[in-house]
């Protein structure tokens, strides 16, 4: 019988033991990103701007150049890098605290300027790294370390929908929300990441992919249940799909 190689670790992914918790979405998104980088042949051209959050150590996994930004500042750092090196592929990889709490200003303004970068937003509805406090995307009534009786939207506001908010701006060329709660959606997420990077390679402008993800540790549930919760609790509030495809002409 002849052997056929049907799967290898992507070249863009370093061989490393993961530090992510079992069932954490960051590992999945890292791997999708690495696969896409291989497929597009851009490993040597890629510069990843890491957030402050659990994925602060993305440079340990993705075999590309990178800069660790201060909390929330990744899109601004990405802007600086991209304007100097328009030929490089610059990715801002961020969590919900980083992108939508402390970094909201940078997020909106990089999008509004239509920076030719790709933003990957991993929304796990909590501050994972600091041990599970309420995030702007924490669901209504969700229990966290700072909302022990559930998020009270009357007091702290409703969860923010990043795609819908950015979709009010003229400049972005591509905005999509995906999820990693099952294989079908993982495949869609990969396609979305690929599109976001292809747009940048084609010089089209700002692309934003929000990935609904899991934090089993801080949600206090097992990985399978966490994936289920994304599907049943998050997806209905954060509808999946493409919000923006072509540059608006205004």
């Amino acid at each position, binding site marked *: 019988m002849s052997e056929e190689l049907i799967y290898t670790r992507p070249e863009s992914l370093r061989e490393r033991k993961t530090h992510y918790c079992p069932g954490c979405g960051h590992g999945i998104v890292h791997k999708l990103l690495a696969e896409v980088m291989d497929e597009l042949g851009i490993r040597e051209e890629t510069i990843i701007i890491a957030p402050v959050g659990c994925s602060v150590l993305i440079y340990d996994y993705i075999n590309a150049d990178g800069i660790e930004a201060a909390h*929330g500042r990744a899109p601004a750092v990405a802007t600086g890098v991209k304007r100097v090196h328009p030929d490089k592929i610059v990715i801002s990889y961020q969590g919900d605290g980083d992108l939508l709490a402390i970094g909201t200003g940078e997020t909106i303004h990089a999008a509004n300027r239509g920076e030719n970068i790709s933003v990957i937003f991993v929304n796990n509805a909590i501050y994972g790294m600091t041990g599970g*406090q309420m995030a702007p995307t924490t669901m209504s009534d969700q229990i966290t370390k*700072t909302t022990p009786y559930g998020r009270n939207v009357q007091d702290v506001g409703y969860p923010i929908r990043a795609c819908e908010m950015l979709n009010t701006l003229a400049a972005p060329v591509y905005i999509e929300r995906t999820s990693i709660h099952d294989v079908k959606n993982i495949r869609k997420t990969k396609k979305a990441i690929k599109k976001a990077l292809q747009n940048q390679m084609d010089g089209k402008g700002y692309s934003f992919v929000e990935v609904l993800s899991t934090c089993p540790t801080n949600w206090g549930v097992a990985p399978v249940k966490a994936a289920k919760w994304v599907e049943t609790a998050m997806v209905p509030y954060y509808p999946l799909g493409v919000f923006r495809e072509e540059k608006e002409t205004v």
Partner: protein
Amino acid sequence: MSEFAFLNGNEAVAWGVRLSRPHVIAAYPITPQTKAVEKLSSFVQNGEMDCKYLHVESEHSAMACSIGSSSVGARTFTATSSQGLLYMSEGLPYASGARLPIVMMNANRSIATPWNIYGDQMDAMHVLNSGWVQLFVEDAQEALDMVIQSFKLAENHDILTPVMINVDGFVLTHTYEKVEIPGQELVDSFLPAIEKAPHLMNDQDPMSLCISAGNQHYMEFKIKQHRDMFKVFEQLESIDRDFEKSFGRSHGGAAAGYRNEDADVILVTTGSVTGTARVVVDSLREQGIKAGLVKLRLLRPFPSDDLFELIGKAGAVGILDKNISFGFEGTVYTNVNSSLLQKGYRGRTFNFIAGLGGRDITKENIEEMFSALLEQKGETVQYFNMGCAL
């Protein structure tokens, strides 16, 4: 009635805040402060505290909300650490210039880059000139007690200056100690409700705050702020005396000595490392070596008089700095050295830099510091527990 509990430094601070009955707490989480704000948010949400807990989106907003609530007369608390303190820093002189009696816990942690979550005191030194009272505590009990004392100090109408309580990250925030939690009634009589300060707003008294002052007035504002800062020494001592009467515990004033009276050599410390240094002093004394210790509780205002008095006739003084001002020396050293020089101190001073980014400061390290002092040997600035020669 007071009760004893096994608390870490963060929880001790949270209890101090709870007993002080603030109207507003605004905070953004950051390691190693998180347990304090989590505890406070649960006190508020389960109804044990009658207080607004503001879940803000950043430290910059935490300070801005605190400025807002304090400006209209609310007792206000916030907590942060490291990068968070730096991100707040635009608001810090704003609050002190507006004479707002905000109290903050800063869980001392290193600052990026490289990233590091462990304890040193670089963050506090970065904002030493922000016009906040800078207080350092040695253990969890002192942390709890100083929250209560700090509100009284900050709100005193002669002071009206915000207070930063520095609690060493992890060493204090995450280690457990037996702590006495005072009874609420006793705290209420020691720290009554905040009184309206004449420069603050309420609905009977509308006014414009945080105004502009051109070159005809600005300097007078700043010199007054500077002068008022010095009133902290006397007030802190008097508050501590009252505290002792009520609670049976005293933490002293701006600086405290330990076996310093007849000491030949003295080590000056801030924060939790003082505990380790006490043990070393005791063992040196057993060997007949006259070693002593001075713990600086305040870095702003800087207690020059107390320090000079506590150092007395010691022939050499070492200053332990868990920070470094690049291109010069440790910041506490700069302060101590300048103040001793002004007072006419004639002994030699050494600067011992240690513990950056959470590096251990061991008993052996402190013994080495004392032997450098006894022999008066080596460079003026020395580094301890380095992993490799540079």
